[in-house]
């Protein structure tokens, strides 16, 4: 065991909620637990806090074992030193803001508590509101009191359960900035539960994708969004262009791999781990698809050209999302984004024929997995 301040989680159980989760979180790091509702995010958080009790596994924090099914160790929440911000904040309704914070300062000498509570409230920009009760505070202010209370214990780990879900959009943006600012002063692991991928990508250093209690992939947000571990992760992080193909050639010397898709041969980024003939899933970000422009044909058009019919053309502000039904045996749709003025100049509209190139380096191959029921999220 080491005392490096890391949080290490290994959990597994079959019921009541299936869990098979493993991840670490370093001091000062923000790890986002992300997944659809019912994926076990909150349960894992409650297990870390000692409010829920997994069947098997270990929970270690800063070299201390909080839970170990092998040795039947299971410390109470009181002995775990966690700061937890609940989804609905769970403030004590009969106590004012400063008393709410003082409730978590039991480990400090009594005369210093009020001063410390005021300091904490000031650090979350609540000076002057110390004597308001929760009902007299706005949603955003309640969240800040909950944050101050969670930090009051000088916790070894900070746990945030959908802390932005219960406030309006404007307040949420403000609280994002405050958290980003606050975390620079915090030296403990921070675990953020959120179902919002953009929120996770914005606030977290790494993301842990959960599905039915299983950790499918842990990595930095950009990596997960561009190089998902498999098709299920790709669907969970809301990637549009996820397809199936078969590996056709592997050329180690040219560092090229090609796959067959829709009767087309696609050059893709070198992926030597897949054997020729293997079934694979693949994905390409919208930024890796280049529209063939009628006004200005370019050399790039020779790279994986595909043609099809525009079936949807949706202008959302400066960007237009275009769905292209690719010519071929199956009615597969490719989603790409182009600047709205480009879409207009090229006369893109429903029913129009169009061509696009799939940039080989942007195509990411993944192990093929049954994309039936399991992938429907």
């Amino acid at each position, binding site marked *: 065991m080491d005392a490096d301040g890391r949080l290490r989680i290994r959990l597994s159980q079959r019921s009541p909620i299936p869990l098979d989760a493993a991840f670490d979180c370093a001091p000062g790091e923000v790890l986002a637990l992300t997944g659809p509702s019912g994926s076990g995010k909150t349960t894992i958080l*409650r297990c870390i806090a000692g409010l829920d009790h997994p069947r098997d596994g270990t929970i270690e924090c800063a070299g201390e074992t909080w839970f170990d099914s092998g040795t039947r160790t299971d410390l109470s929440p*009181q002995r775990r030193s966690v700061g*937890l911000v*609940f989804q609905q904040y*769970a*403030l004590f309704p009969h106590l004012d803001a400063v008393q709410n914070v003082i409730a*978590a300062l039991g480990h400090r000498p009594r005369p210093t508590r009020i001063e410390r509570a005021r300091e904490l409230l000031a650090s979350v920009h609540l000076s002057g509101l110390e004597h308001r009760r929760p*009902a007299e505070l706005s949603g955003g202010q309640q969240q800040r009191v909950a944050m101050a209370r969670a930090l009051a*214990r000088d916790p070894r780990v900070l746990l945030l359960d959908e802390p932005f879900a219960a406030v309006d959009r404007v307040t949420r943006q403000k609280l994002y900035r405050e958290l980003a600012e606050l975390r620079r002063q915090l030296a403990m692991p921070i675990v953020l539960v959120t179902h919002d991928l953009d929120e996770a990508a914005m606030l977290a250093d790494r993301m842990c994708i959960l599905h039915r209690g299983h950790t499918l992939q842990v990595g930095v947000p950009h990596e997960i969004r561009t190089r998902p571990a498999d098709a299920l992760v790709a669907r969970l992080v809301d990637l549009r262009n996820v397809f199936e193909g078969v590996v056709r050639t592997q050329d180690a010397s040219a560092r090229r791999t090609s796959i067959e898709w829709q009767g087309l041969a696609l050059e893709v980024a070198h992926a030597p781990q897949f054997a020729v003939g293997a079934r694979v899933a693949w994905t390409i970000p919208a930024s890796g698809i280049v529209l063939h422009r009628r006004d200005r044909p370019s050399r790039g058009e020779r790279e994986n050209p595909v043609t099809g019919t525009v079936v949807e053309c949706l202008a959302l502000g400066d960007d237009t999302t275009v769905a292209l039904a690719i010519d071929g045996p199956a009615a597969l749709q490719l989603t790409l984004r182009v600047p709205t003025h480009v879409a207009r100049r090229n006369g893109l509209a429903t029913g129009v024929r169009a061509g696009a190139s799939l940039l080989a380096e942007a195509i990411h191959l993944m192990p093929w997995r049954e994309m039936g029921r399991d992938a429907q999220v």
Partner: protein
Amino acid sequence: MEWQALALSLKLAAWTVALLLPAALALARVLAWGRFAGRHFLEAALALPLVLPPTVLGYYLLSAFGANSALGRAFADVLGHPLAFSFAGLLAASLIFNLPFAIQPMQRAFEAIPADVRPAAACCGLSPWRIFTEIELPLAWPGVLSAIVLTFAHTLGEFGVVLMVGGNIPGETRTIAIAIYDRVQAFDTRSAGLMAAVLLVLSLAAIVVAYSTNRRAEPARGR
């Protein structure tokens, strides 16, 4: 006006509240938050005195307190006199027929505490005892007060069970409700009317106190 009967009723009500409150607090918490087999049966059994005719309840208690039952004999050995037709028996009966009046308001109050508040208190490092005294009790206080008032008022007014179990022994089991009945039987309507008025005023005052406290407590509880 029978001061002795009034004093006896007040004494009975005070003892009932004092003895029943701790047990009812524990039961109310278990019923509010406990998840165990038989919970619904326990809840139903504890609510039974609400719907059972007082004479039926009184009959069973009298049988249980009598010299023919093990319970009755055990009590008689300890007390030196039978439980039936004594103040101790009356108190025991009062504890039982007041169970729902003491438990239900507190159970509702505990149930109304937002679900994550107690886990949040544990995560703040508060011990279970401090969570109970500093978080649960202040939040459930209106329910506790309702329970006290309802139990007290209901004990003052209970007639059927008292008559069955205690009879009508002055200074021992003759409560004000029994005294009123007795005075009416003797065509002493002046005395009966006076005592009835005293009981009415006491009960009304108790309910008003309970209701107004509940109202005042509401805005402070927030969400």
